[in-house]
């Protein structure tokens, strides 16, 4: 009791204290340490809150009714679902906070670290409160705090043009999501005074099916644009590379999951699920996101943008799990539906770990080589061995290789899709094999993409002076990444312990019915109730380790010759230079050709000749670009229309005070008339 009631205010206090104290810190160095300290206190307290709620399954409530009492006051109500997402937030924040201590030292002199510290803690506070929110006001307030704080964090390097553009796209998309979320909440509320989530459940029950459908669509669009589903994902590949690496880790690993939280909370908790087309929409959106995310990631050479596109892919996978669960739920197959939802939650947790790890490791690389371009890296495994190993663990996890956590959660998503064959309607059930195919293709392409990302960045020889001079990253940055790497391994090998805990979380979600007798106990196997397969990641890990060990020992017993170092075989050429290595573009070229219809790469070849004679070539420039076509189709018209409207409206601003007074009088008369006509 004591621990629980202290932890929640401690979490809030940690973040608020960190924010305020960082703002008034005397020096940049002090600001860095105070930021980290506040964030660490807040995250640890958040973990305590989450652990308590998950273990006892009793919600924790904290109300501050005096703050804007008209809107219902500030209400924090942590139920198991919220606690799960709070744990995800805290698991991402803790390493990021530790990481930021050394990483932000590079910004001293360029940006205000006090302001950064303020915004960092406000960001963490916003994310934590979103997961804890108990009424509309708290939720929307926290949501906006999170969005605005992250905008300022993204704009840390505002001296770079791409960052400013990224910030513009980002703030536009967050405001768009707010614009869709507000009407959604208002539709759900049964009355002006009753805005707590418990009241929303009651209100949702009284809505007509059409209104429920509209609420669901608004939720998918609003929360989906925050989560980064195609085609609302366009801010992700711009904002995540522009932000500092630990902020990218938080945004990619944690913040976009709050979009998933919103969808689950609104569609399945408050509204208790719906007709099959809800799940079908989620399944389609998820499959498309997964496939397009990884296809565009393959063409990227910017390390952080590649990771950002992979976030789109993994959100797609999470939503596939949600969609499968939702369809099964709408047909009454409750026990099979829980496999889908549990798979979605599991992948949420896993993605937070391995994406955070990858961004932190990439941050190490960027910190030391001062470039994000893979084509300028190489050979870093010898200069930065720990970072390389960390990136390798993250790559193996995201490529869903056993026995790490990515494999366990993708396995569960596959099982959820396989369960779809029990659906009585054949035309609905046939969508599931297509989703299986798309998911498998996305998974294979992800493996190919990370062979490229790890291989080109870390292996072979350095391709530039930056890479050749790189040293290992500072200790705090490595420690933070090792924490996440350990989490990846533990969550993978310990899958059989994690999955039953996820089922217990789902028991608290209103619309889902988990039969306690069929929910499995922790053991050696991942089992789902009446599932179509059995898997034991811990035994597979043990099997693999023992076989490799036996092989190593046997080979070293049998083979006694020493190893000899020699040049790489290059058909006897005289020397080997880094220019002879394979490049990232070359690695992805076969896939670029295979999917050329989708990519529509543009090619530009410019040959400039000597002015005196057309036969002497001075330079040849070849540029090839892959630009997502839906940006041209969907966003360019909107942006152009917006510009046109802006130009038209600008004509109203003539600068003449007399005209402005006419505007004021006209508006006043219109307001008075409207009051008179519509009482």
């Amino acid at each position, binding site marked *: 009791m004591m621990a629980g009631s202290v932890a929640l205010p401690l979490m809030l206090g940690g973040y608020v204290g960190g924010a305020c104290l960082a703002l008034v810190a005397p020096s940049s160095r002090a600001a860095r340490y105070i930021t980290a300290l506040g964030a660490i206190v807040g995250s640890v307290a958040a973990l305590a809150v989450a652990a308590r709620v998950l273990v006892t399954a009793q919600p924790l409530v904290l109300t501050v009714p005096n703050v804007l009492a008209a809107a219902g006051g500030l209400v924090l109500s942590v139920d198991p679902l919220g606690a799960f997402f709070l744990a995800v937030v805290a698991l991402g924040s803790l390493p990021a906070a530790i990481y930021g201590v050394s990483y932000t030292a590079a910004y001293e002199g360029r940006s205000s670290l006090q302001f950064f510290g303020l915004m960092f803690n406000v960001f963490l506070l916003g994310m934590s409160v979103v997961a804890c929110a108990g009424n509309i006001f708290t939720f929307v307030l926290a949501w906006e705090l999170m969005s605005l704080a992250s905008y300022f964090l993204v704009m840390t390097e505002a001296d770079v043009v791409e960052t400013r553009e990224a910030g513009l796209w980002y703030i536009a998309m967050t405001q768009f999501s707010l614009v869709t979320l507000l009407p959604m909440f208002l539709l759900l509320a049964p009355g002006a005074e009753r805005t707590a989530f418990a009241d929303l459940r009651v209100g949702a029950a009284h809505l007509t099916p059409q209104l429920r459908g509209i609420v669901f669509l608004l939720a998918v669009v609003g929360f989906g644009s925050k989560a980064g589903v195609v085609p609302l994902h366009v801010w992700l590949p711009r904002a995540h590379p522009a932000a500092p690496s630990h902020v990218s880790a938080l945004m990619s690993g944690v913040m976009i999951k709050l979009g998933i939280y919103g969808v689950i909370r609104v569609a399945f908790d408050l509204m208790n699920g719906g007709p099959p087309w809800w799940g079908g929409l989620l399944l389609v959106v998820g499959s498309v996101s997964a496939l397009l995310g990884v296809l565009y990631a393959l063409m990227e050479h910017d390390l952080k943008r590649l990771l950002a596109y992979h976030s789109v892919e993994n959100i797609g996978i999470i939503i596939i799990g949600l969609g499968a669960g939702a369809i099964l739920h709408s047909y009454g197959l409750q026990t099979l539906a829980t496999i889908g939802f549990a798979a979605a939650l599991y992948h949420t947790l896993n993605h937070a770990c391995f994406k955070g790890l990858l961004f932190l490791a990439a941050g190490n690389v960027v910190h030391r080589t001062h470039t994000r371009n893979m084509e300028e890296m190489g050979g870093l495994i010898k200069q930065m061995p720990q970072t390389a190993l960390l990136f390798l663990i993250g790559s193996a996890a995201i490529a869903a290789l056993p026995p790490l956590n990515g494999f366990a959660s993708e396995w569960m998503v596959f099982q959820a899709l396989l369960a779809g064959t029990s659906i009585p309607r054949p035309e609905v059930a046939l969508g599931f094999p297509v989703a299986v195919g798309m998911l498998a293709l996305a998974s294979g392409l992800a493996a190919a993409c990370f062979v490229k990302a790890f291989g080109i960045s870390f292996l072979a020889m350095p391709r530039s002076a930056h890479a050749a001079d790189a040293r290992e990253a500072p200790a705090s940055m490595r420690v933070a990444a090792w924490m996440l790497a350990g989490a990846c391994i533990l969550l993978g090998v310990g899958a059989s312990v994690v999955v039953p805990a996820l089922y217990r979380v789902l028991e608290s979600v209103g619309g889902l019915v988990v039969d306690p007798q069929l929910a499995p106990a922790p053991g050696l196997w991942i089992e789902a109730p009446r599932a179509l397969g059995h*898997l034991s990641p811990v035994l597979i890990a043990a099997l693999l380790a023992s076989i490799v060990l036996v092989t190593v020992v046997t080979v070293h017993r049998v083979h006694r*010759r020493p190893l000899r170092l020699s040049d790489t075989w290059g058909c006897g050429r005289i020397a080997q230079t880094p220019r002879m290595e394979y490049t990232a573009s070359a690695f992805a070229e076969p896939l670029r050709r295979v999917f050329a219809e989708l990519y529509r790469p543009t090619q530009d070849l410019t040959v400039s000749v000597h002015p005196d004679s057309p036969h002497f070539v001075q330079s040849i420039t070849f540029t090839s670009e892959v630009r997502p076509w839906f940006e041209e189709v969907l966003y360019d018209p909107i942006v152009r229309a917006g510009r046109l409207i802006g130009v038209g409206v600008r004509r109203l601003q003539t600068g003449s005070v007399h005209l402005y007074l006419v505007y004021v009088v006209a508006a006043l008369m219109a307001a008075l008339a409207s009051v008179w006509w519509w009482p």
Partner: protein
Amino acid sequence: MIEAIAVLTQTLAFVALAPGLTGFIRWMKARLQGRRGAPVWQPYVELRKLFAKERVVSKTASWVFRAAPFVVFGTSVAVASLVPLVFVPTAYDRIGDLFAVVYLLLLGTFFLALAGLDTGSPFGGMGASREMTVVALTEPTVALSIFALALTAQSTNLGDIIRQTVAEPVRALGTGHLLAFTALFIVTLAETGRLPIDNPSTHLELTMIHEAMVLEYSGPYLALVEWAAALKLLIFFVIAANLFLPWGVAFGWSPARLILAFLLIVLKVGMLAVLVAVLETRVAKLRLFRVPELLSASFVMALLAVLSTFLLR
């Protein structure tokens, strides 16, 4: 306990037989080309020779290059323990299912591709790039074939699929199974680097896919990689034989049944080997950018397999 020993023996048999399969296919191809060819046990002699050779490692390579042969071999052996060769274990079967098999093999390929990039040689990079392209494009077909098999058996574990097919023989000859078998056969050719996707005996580096990644390996490293490749071929053949035509697989361990099962699996794998040898003699290698067309055709077959299994239930 007895089951653990039995599974261990089965795995060792798998590992021991794998080079023999490669040797048999090579011998068959030689005879079809009108020449004597090396004896069937030639790969064993070659492996023995490789263990006596020196290890030469490139100066630009890192620990990934030296670790990759062990990872590839380890994952292949782990998969071999999960695939029933002569008998179906009951408890051990639950450790991993067909998805675990596919992703363990992907783990091996992942490390081998990294090793190809590690030496800084353009051949290695090219091999890695092509291999990952082919593997990525075969994934959907494999997943859908698993789906088709799991539909009838209501499980993705290999033992359950075998049991279900034995119990319902009529289902095994249905269109769904035949289509899934064809799709899986094409995937076998792609993943193990046989014609028409990749020529295992080519010397032209620019035509290589799998071989290009291992150009830098020597001595015991090369032996492990070659053994793992042979093991992968045997694994795919046994999956094709025992999941689609499982009659003869033993469920207990009476010696008579085990010997019968062994003879039958040798017969089935032998037939598949003859089929592959005849196919490799008949067809020419496909141009690299025609391979995705073949793989899409196999994907469509797998999708039709699932649809027909589903609709004809």
